[in-house]
C-alpha cells in the first residue's frame, strides 16, 4: 500500500479551465489517474478533456465519488479554493500554485489541521504513486513502481533524483514534494512517519535544501523513533548565496539551524547516508 494516494483515488481538478490546469489534467488522465470532475467558478457545464466542469466543489461531490483535490487556481484565489476543498472533506488537498501570501497559508494550514486534512504544498510538484495515481505536474515517465519512498522540498531536483533511481532499477512506492514555501502542510517528519508505517516502502530518499529547520527536525525524529528503514539524503545549497534574512527575528526564531552544514551534520548524526551529488542517492540505497 503506497501512501496518501493510489489506484482507488478519485480526484477533482480546481482551476481546470486554466492553461496549466487543462494541460496537466490531460497528462494525469493519460497516466491513468482518475480525474472525475473539474471546478472553475462560472464555467459550470463546460468540459475539459472530456471531464465535466462544475461551479462548486460541493456540486462535483454530489455528482461523483470524490476523495482528493489538486489545485491550479491563481495565488490570489488559492486559499479560497483550498478551503472549499477542505469544507467538502476532500483529502488530500494538493496545492500546485506558487506565490500564495504567507498569511493565507497560515490560516489555511490551521483550518486543515483542525479538520485533519492533509495539505500537500503549496508550491509543490505534487505527489505520485507510480502506475497508480498522479496528483501533480511531474513528468510521469521518469517514475516506476517499486519500494523507495521519496520526499522532497524541491521540484526539478526531485525529477533529477527520481530519474536516477529509476535508471538504477530502484522503483518508488510514492514520491511527493512537500513544497518550497515557508509555510507548507506537511513536514519531512509527517511523511517519514507515513513511510515508516507503509509495509511496501523499504527505504527512503530525502531531498532537502537550505533554509528553515525541517531537516534538523527530521534528524531528531529519526533518532527518537530509532527509524527502522534506511534513509539517504541530498541537501542542496552548500554553494548557494545566503538567502533573504529576516533581521534579528529571523535569526532568533531559527537559532543555529538552516545552513547546509547544520542539516548535513544533524542527518549524519542520525545515521542518514548523505549524498554529495544527486546521483549518489541511488548508490546509497542500492547497497542496502
Amino acid at each position, binding site marked *: 500500500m503506497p501512501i496518501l494516494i493510489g489506484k482507488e483515488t478519485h480526484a477533482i481538478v480546481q482551476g481546470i479551465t486554466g492553461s*496549466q490546469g487543462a494541460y496537466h489534467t490531460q497528462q494525469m488522465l493519460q497516466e491513468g489517474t482518475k480525474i472525475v470532475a473539474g471546478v472553475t467558478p462560472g464555467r459550470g457545464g463546460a468540459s475539459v478533456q472530456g471531464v465535466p466542469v462544475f461551479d462548486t466543489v460541493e456540486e462535483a461531490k454530489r455528482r461523483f465519488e470524490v476523495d482528493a483535490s489538486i489545485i491550479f487556481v491563481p*495565488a*490570489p484565489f488559492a486559499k479560497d479554493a483550498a478551503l472549499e476543498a477542505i469544507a467538502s472533506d476532500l483529502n488530500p488537498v494538493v496545492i500546485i500554485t506558487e506565490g*500564495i*501570501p*504567507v*498569511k493565507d*497559508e*497560515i*490560516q489555511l*494550514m*490551521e*483550518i486543515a*489541521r*483542525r479538520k485533519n486534512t492533509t495539505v500537500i504544498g503549496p508550491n509543490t*510538484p505534487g505527489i505520485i504513486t507510480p502506475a497508480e495515481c498522479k496528483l501533480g*505536474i*511531474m*513528468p510521469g515517465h*521518469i517514475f516506476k513502481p517499486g519500494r523507495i519512498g521519496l520526499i*522532497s*522540498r*524541491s*521540484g*526539478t*531536483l526531485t*525529477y*533529477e533524483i527520481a*530519474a536516477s533511481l529509476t535508471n538504477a532499477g530502484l522503483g518508488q512506492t510514492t514520491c511527493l514534494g512537500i513544497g*518550497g514555501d*515557508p*509555510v507548507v502542510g506537511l*513536514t519531512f517528519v509527517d511523511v517519514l512517519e507515513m513511510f515508516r508505517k507503509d509495509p511496501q516502502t523499504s527505504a527512503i530518499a530525502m*531531498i532537502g*535544501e*537550505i533554509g*528553515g*529547520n*525541517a531537516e534538523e*527536525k527530521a534528524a531528531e525524529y529519526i533518532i527518537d523513533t530509532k527509524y527502522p528503514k534506511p534513509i539517504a539524503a541530498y541537501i*542542496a*545549497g*552548500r*554553494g*548557494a*548565496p545566503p538567502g533573504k*534574512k*529576516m*533581521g*534579528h*527575528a*529571523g535569526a*532568533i*526564531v531559527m*537559532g*543555529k539551524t538552516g545552513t*547546509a552544514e547544520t542539516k548535513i551534520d544533524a542527518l549524519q548524526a542520525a545515521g542518514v547516508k548523505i549524498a554529495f*551529488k*544527486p*546521483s549518489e542517492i541511488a548508490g546509497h540505497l542500492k547497497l542496502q
Partner: protein
Amino acid sequence: MKLFEYEAKEIARRYGVPIPSGIVVSSPEEARAAFEKLNQPSMIKAQVLVAGRGKAGGIKPASNSGEAFEISGSILSTIIKGEKVTKVLVEQRVASKHERYVSIVVDRSSRAYTILCSTEGGVDIEQVADQSPEKIVRYKVDQLVNLQDYEGRIIAKHLGCSGKQINELARIIGKLFQILLDYDAELVESNPLIETESGDFVAADLRILLDDNSLFRHPEFLARMKNFEPDMTPLEIKAREKNLSYVELDGDVGIIGNGAGLVMATLDMILDYKGKAANFCDVGGGADEERTAAALEIVLANPKVKVLLINIMGGITKCDDVARAILDIQKRMEISKPMVIRLVGTNEEEGHKILTAANIPSLNSMEEAAAKAVEIASKVK
C-alpha cells in the same frame, strides 16, 4: 519587501503606536528646518534598507540646527554598505531607562505567527538569543482566534511590566499585530522599544518587512517595488522585470537552470569541482523559449562570466525549446563565450540533435557538465 524606517513609523503613528516625533528630509537645508521645528536635541538617521547602519555611521546626534545641517549633509553624501543615502530622518532624542525587544515573525515549524520578546533589547539581541535563549519569550498566536488583549498582558508580564504599563504594552503589541495582519507583513520588529524615565513606551526603531507574494493586495507598494530596490544590482533588477530568479555572485561560471533546487545543486557541484559560480539563475519549472532567451541575455551581460553552464532537467520545460532558444539568441547576440549544455528529460533527443547540428556540444550528465565548465573557466584568461 522592506519598508524604510520612516515609512514603518508613519504606519505605526496612524495605528496609535507611540513613536518619537520626527521629520524625514532629503537635504541639509530641510534638515535644519526640521530641527528648528522639533526644537529639541535630535538624532539624524540615514534611511537605508541595509542592516547595521548605526555601526556604519548612519545615526548621529545633533544638538543645534547648525549641527543638524552639517551632519545630515555628511550622511546624505555617503553610501552605507552599497546603498546610497537619499533621505534622513530628523528625530526627537528619547532618553531611555530600559530597552526591550518585541517582534512578530512567521515561524515555519509551527506554521504560525510568533511573538518574540525580551527584556534585553538593543543592538546585541542576537547575542542574547544565542547565549541566554531563556531571556527570549516566544508566544504563538492562534491564527483563527487572533491576538487577544489578555495575551498581550501575559507578554507584558513576561517583559517585567507592572501597574498601568501592563495594559499599555499589551495595547502596543496588539497594534503591532494588527499592522502585521493589515499589511501582510512577514515581520514587524521594534528594537529597541524604549521605556522612558516617566515609564512610557516609545518604539524608537521599527522595521516592517512585507510579504512580496501579498503585494497584489497592496498596490501602493507594488508600484514602488518595481521602481526601486537599492540593494539589487542592475542585472538583478532587469531579471526581476522578466520574472527570473537571478542573484549575482563573485565567480566566473555563469549558470542557468530550471528549478531552484536544481540550480542550487549545480552551484554545489561547481564548488565541489573547485570552481566559482558567477550567479544563481532559475528560469523556473515551466520555462519556455522566451524565458530561456531572457536568462541567457542577463547571465551573459555580466562581464565576469567566462563560461556559461546551462543545466536543464526537462519536465514541463521541453529540451527542444531550450535548444532552439540557445540558437535563437546566438543569432541575435554575438556570443563569444564558451557554453556547456546539459539537457535531459522531455524531448531530450530532439534537443541534442538541434544543438549538435549547430556545433554546440551537449551532455547528459550533470557532473561531467559541471567539471567541464570549471575546466574551461580555469583556461580562459
